[in-house]
């Protein structure tokens, strides 16, 4: 993780972060009293016909249009598949313009990897393409519960013109699904509750790359919003999917899969073990948020912004074991 850690330092987010505003407590979409200057990353070709833009390890702010996740597209023989749509209408529009700089092929599919706004709110930018919006079978319900709430929060930060509307999946993946772009096949897996209740991953047959969504985060601290035990199980599953390299939801846009999964597995395993210990020793939740997983602090950007919340979520789950 050393190299990754060094890479993430360049984002400049560590330590200089102020705490996220409580209006966003609990969700990836967070704004900062002092807006971070978002480092703009450019579109990068990470594989044949695969373009990705790295998201900075920051929170949503007026300066960055919530363009904080790794997003991009794959150009196939028969059309374009958007791998992640972006964090706002503005981010999605930027992505669409980047696609049009490179190809005139129809944009046929937009992947929605899970419910969080930094991954979903770009979808509205593709309305005129009438694409197939593909998501986990739990995504619709999750968007129904939270979409309007996220939209309001996003409008508070970016304003209504830039925020975008909630878009629902048109194709729902129950276990697995395939999309054929003519010269390559995308194979989707709907995961059990892990990072969220609706995580969808995808393997591209053309490059062998695994697109993990936020089941994998590199350098940016993972945020727990589903099930800790479930996430650790799904990490084992990702290890067995036959991919050597991956495009994570956050972090460098192409990473070696094994060490990256080891890194997130170590954090989540530490979170689980130390939270269990705290519960067994009658350490209260408000003390546990200060003590659990502190050995991981130097390894992740935004640690102090998310670790206490992750401990809270973990504690809630594990105290009933």
């Amino acid at each position: 993780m050393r190299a990754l850690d060094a890479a993430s330092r360049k984002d400049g987010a560590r330590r200089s972060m102020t705490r996220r505003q409580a209006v966003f407590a609990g969700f990836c979409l967070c704004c900062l009293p002092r807006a971070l200057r978002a480092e703009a990353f450019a579109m990068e070709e990470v594989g044949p016909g695969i373009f990705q833009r790295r998201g900075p390890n920051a929170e949503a702010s007026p300066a960055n249009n919530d363009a904080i996740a790794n997003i991009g597209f794959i150009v196939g023989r028969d059309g374009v598949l958007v791998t992640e749509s972006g964090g706002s209408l503005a981010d999605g529009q930027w992505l669409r313009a980047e696609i049009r700089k490179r190809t005139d092929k129809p944009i046929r599919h937009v992947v929605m990897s899970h419910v969080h706004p930094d991954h979903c709110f770009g979808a509205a930018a593709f309305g005129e393409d009438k694409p197939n919006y593909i998501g986990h079978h739990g995504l619709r319900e999750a968007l129904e519960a939270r979409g309007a709430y996220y939209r309001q929060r996003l409008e508070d930060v970016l304003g209504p013109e830039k925020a975008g509307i909630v878009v629902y999946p048109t194709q729902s993946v129950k276990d697995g699904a395939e999309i054929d772009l003519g010269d390559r096949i995308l194979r989707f897996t709907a995961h059990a509750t892990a990072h969220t209740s609706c995580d969808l991953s995808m393997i591209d047959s053309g490059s062998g790359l695994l697109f993990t969504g936020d089941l994998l985060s590199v350098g940016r601290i993972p945020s727990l919003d589903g099930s800790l035990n479930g996430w650790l199980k799904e990490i084992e599953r990702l290890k067995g999917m036959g991919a050597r390299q991956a495009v994570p939801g956050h972090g460098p846009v192409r990473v070696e899969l094994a060490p990256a999964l080891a890194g997130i597995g170590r954090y989540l395993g530490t979170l689980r073990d130390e939270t269990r210990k705290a519960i067994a020793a009658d350490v209260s939740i408000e003390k546990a948020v200060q003590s659990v997983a502190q050995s991981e602090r130097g390894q992740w950007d935004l640690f102090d912004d998310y670790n206490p919340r992750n401990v809270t979520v973990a504690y809630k789950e594990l105290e009933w074991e």
Partner: protein
Amino acid sequence: MTYAALALGLSLTAALASGAAQAAGASDTDADRDARWKEIAASIFKDRAIQPTETLVKVDAPKRAEDAALVPITLTMPEKDRIKAVHLVIDDNPSPYAAHVSFGPAADPGELKLRVRVNNYTNVHAVAETKDGGLYEAAKFVKASGGCSAPMGMSDEEAMKGMGDMRMKFAGDVQPGKPVEATLMIRHPNFSGMQMNQVTRDYTPARYINKVTVDYGPKNVFVMDGDISIASNPVINFAFLPEGKGPIKVTATDNQGGRWEHSFTAPTASN
């Protein structure tokens, strides 16, 4: 707004602005907050005088909540022999009167912990009621919002799984004469009535634990009247005196007629 009619009977139009107006209280002045507290206090305690205190009750809470739907609150009442009851009020919540806990003869009221929802930047007030009828208040300002309307992150069916299950944990070894710390956990979604399916526009109806009674043998430890501000899967830390006989019995009811009873074996001094 349907959540005006709540267990504790407090309906306060000023605070019922809207579940969606999350930030409304963030910019209020101290004068606004004082006025709101006076209005709430008058509706709960009528014309009884409330003295500020720095000794009879203290409220501890994170200044900024990690999770607005689970804000841990600790109430400390060091002069415990004087305490009869404590009231917890979250001024800017839609239904501010979060809990009323009255202590029985088997209680040690020195410390009580609860987990609450906080819907807005707010003062959290604790009012201790002494055995001679005095009321004493302390407050803590908490920054959090959306805790009452935050979606559960799972389906209603899933949230209701195991409803009424309970656990009780006891901390440490029992020493004769020393209070025993206990943690009561109750499985219950405590639906606030403000959690909405955004598409059907249906609110999950409020369903919350409205009364928890804990007895140690024939003696009462405490009775808590609760409301929608109590976090889902309520957890209450309390202490009791170890002199009792018989099991610890917990009875919980909710506002929709749910009733659950569990008995736990009380630890005894091992000497």
